[in-house]
C-alpha cells in the first residue's frame, strides 16, 4: 500500500511541478540568477500551506512530525556542496526525474551524476561519520523549542513574511 501511495503522490506532485514549469533548468537557474522567482513562489506556497495543515493536524493528534537532526557539520557543508552542484545541474533530485519525464535529456546526465555522487558518499561515509558528522550535533530540534514559543506565532510570522515577499516579487516582476 505504501508503494501505491508513493506512486500516486509522486504523479500528482509531478503534474504540479510540470504545469508550473518548476522542473525546467531555465526556471531553476532563473531563481539562482535572481531574475525569475517561479520556483521560490512555488516552494514557499507549498511550505506555507503544508506548515499550516500539518500543524493543525498535529494539534488534533492526527499526525506525527519527522524532524531531521540539526548536525551543523553535515548540514552546512552538505547544503553548500549541494547548492554548488544544483547551480551546475539546474536540477535537484526530485525535479531531475520530472525534467526527464517532459523530455529534457540533459536531466538523464544529472541523474547519472547523482547516482555516482551517492556512491561516492557511501565510500566516504565511514570517515565522515567519525569526523565531520560529529561536529555541532544539536539533535532533532525545531523552532518552537529553540525559541520557547508555541508553533502558531512562528507560523504566522513565516506566513506574513512569505506574503510580503510575494508582493515584492510581483511588484518587481520577478
Amino acid at each position, binding site marked *: 500500500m505504501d508503494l501505491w501511495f508513493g506512486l*500516486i503522490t509522486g504523479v500528482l506532485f509531478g503534474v504540479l511541478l510540470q504545469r508550473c514549469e518548476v522542473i525546467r533548468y531555465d526556471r531553476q537557474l532563473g531563481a539562482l540568477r535572481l531574475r525569475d522567482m517561479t520556483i521560490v513562489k512555488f516552494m514557499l506556497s507549498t511550505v506555507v500551506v503544508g506548515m499550516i495543515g500539518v500543524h493543525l493536524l498535529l494539534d488534533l493528534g492526527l499526525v506525527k512530525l519527522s524532524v531531521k537532526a540539526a548536525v551543523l557539520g553535515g548540514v552546512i557543508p552538505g547544503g553548500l556542496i549541494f547548492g554548488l552542484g544544483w547551480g551546475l545541474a539546474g536540477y535537484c533530485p526530485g525535479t531531475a526525474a520530472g525534467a526527464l519525464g517532459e523530455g529534457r535529456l540533459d536531466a538523464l546526465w544529472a541523474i547519472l551524476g547523482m547516482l555516482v555522487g551517492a556512491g561516492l*558518499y*557511501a565510500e566516504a561515509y565511514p570517515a565522515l561519520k567519525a569526523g565531520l558528522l560529529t561536529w555541532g550535533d544539536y539533535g532533532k530540534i525545531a523552532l518552537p523549542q529553540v525559541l520557547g514559543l508555541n508553533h502558531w506565532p512562528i507560523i504566522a510570522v513565516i506566513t506574513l513574511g512569505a506574503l510580503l515577499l510575494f508582493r515584492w516579487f510581483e511588484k518587481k516582476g520577478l
Partner: protein
Amino acid sequence: MSIPPSRSRPWSPYLGGALAGLLVVLSVFVAGKYFGASTTFVRGAGFVESLLAPERVAAMPYFIKEAPKLDWQALFVVGILVGAALASQVSGTFRVQSVPDSFDRRFGGSALRRGAVAFLGGVLAMFGARLADGCPSGHGLSGTLQLSVSGFIALACFFIGGIITARMQYKGR
C-alpha cells in the same frame, strides 16, 4: 518538427505550490510520509553496485543504513517522472531537448558540454544532499514546513551555493 500550434500556458506557481502543500498534508495524514527524494538515489546506487560487487555492498555501512529496496520514496520519485510525462503530453509541452534554452544562449548548443556540466552538477548535488541528510524536498519543503532548524539552515545553504555557481556561469548576463 515545428513548434506545436497551441501550447498550454503554465499554471500559477502560487496555486500549484498551494496544491502541492495540500498534497503534502494529505500524504502525511494518509500515509504518514513527508516528501523526500535523495535517499532513493542512495538505494539506486547501492542496487547498481550490488550487481557488480554484492559482497562489498553488503558490508558498506551506508548501504546497510539505506539498503537497496523499493519503498514509498522510490515510487514517489518514479511518480514525479510519470506525472511530468503525462502533464507534458496532455498540455503539448513535452519537448525532447538536450540543451536547455538559457544554457544554449550562454554556452552554445553542444549536448556533450551540457551533459558534462549536468553530470558534474549531479555528482556534487547528491554528495552534498547526503552529507546534509536531505535535498530541497526533504529539507527545503518537509523540513521547513515542520519548522525544523536543519531545514532552514539547509535551505539557506542550498541557495547560497546555487547562487555562487549560477553567478560563475552567467556573470553579467
